């Protein structure tokens, strides 16, 4: 009897130690003004897969990443990829329209407020979040070096796969 009780305890402890199928982390919902004016929520922008990138226009690594990221948007949009870039520096907001035109970017831009960096724990840019159709975070990538777009593309392809 005592042996059976001990065995039950061991099994219970073992079961508790196993990783549980915990719910994946979701990106905190947002409701932010778009560059064009109307507010957009996270639900509004969710696609089959969604890339949310936090940035500011004078961030050198954002400017290095965005031509490649725009290309990913152009390539996979038809397959269900949604994308938004969220500006985290309100005092650089006025630079965005010209910056966007100059580089030919068409990815929708949302305007973060002063609290956005804290709310999303953004300390550096660019910070990329790839989400699934329910807003769950599939991957996060901080910064950018040439070649990172290849990994990002593979993750997008995986997220869009039927």
């Amino acid at each position: 009897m005592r042996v059976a009780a001990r065995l039950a305890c061991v099994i219970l402890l073992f079961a508790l130690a196993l990783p549980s199928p915990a719910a994946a982390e979701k990106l905190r919902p947002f409701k932010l003004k778009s560059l064009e004016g109307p507010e957009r929520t996270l639900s509004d922008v969710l696609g089959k897969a969604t890339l949310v990138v936090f940035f500011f226009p004078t961030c050198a690594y954002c400017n290095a990443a965005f031509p490649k990221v725009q290309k990913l948007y152009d390539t996979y949009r038809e397959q269900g990829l949604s994308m938004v870039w969220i500006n985290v520096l309100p005092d650089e907001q006025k630079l965005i329209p010209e910056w966007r035109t100059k580089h030919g970017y068409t990815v929708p831009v949302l305007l973060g407020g002063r609290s956005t960096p804290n709310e999303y724990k953004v300390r550096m840019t660019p910070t990329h979040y790839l989400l699934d159709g329910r807003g769950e975070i599939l991957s996060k990538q901080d910064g950018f070096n040439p070649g990172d777009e290849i990994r990002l593309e593979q993750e997008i392809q995986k997220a869009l796969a039927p």
Partner: protein
Amino acid sequence: MLRSLLASLLACTTIGVTRAGADVIVARNTRHLSFTASLSPDAVKPGGHLTLVVDVVPKKKMHVYAPGTTYRAIAVTLNANRSLKPSKMNYPKPSIYLFAPLKERVLVYTDPFKLTMNVAVGAVPAQTKQLRVSGTLSYQACDDRVCYLPESIPLEWTLPVRR
């Protein structure tokens, strides 16, 4: 020896104001750099001047921008004070950083450097016993992979007025 060691340690790890010799030092250690900002002499004399010296030590792989680029250059801004007239900040010669992803040459500081500023002291109201000098050190740092959000660090000194 021990005192100077402690002063250096304070300068590297804390925010605060300490007195070392004739200077009044503000020290701060951030994720991107450490700095000490000192004002000398340690008292305000109407009609005299103050010298602000900021010694900045960028951390490993970090760079901050120098004036002359489209990026946010490191700067000290003193808040308006009727008794003080700050001159332009003196910057040391920056180095040129080749930002390979954009094939761009930018003016940066990667090694320890010193910023200086002269501040002329004008008339100080007769009843004023102490003068508060305040401002901010602002910069935006990047390393070899990411850019960090701009920082704006408050600076403040309170100096006695000696007539």
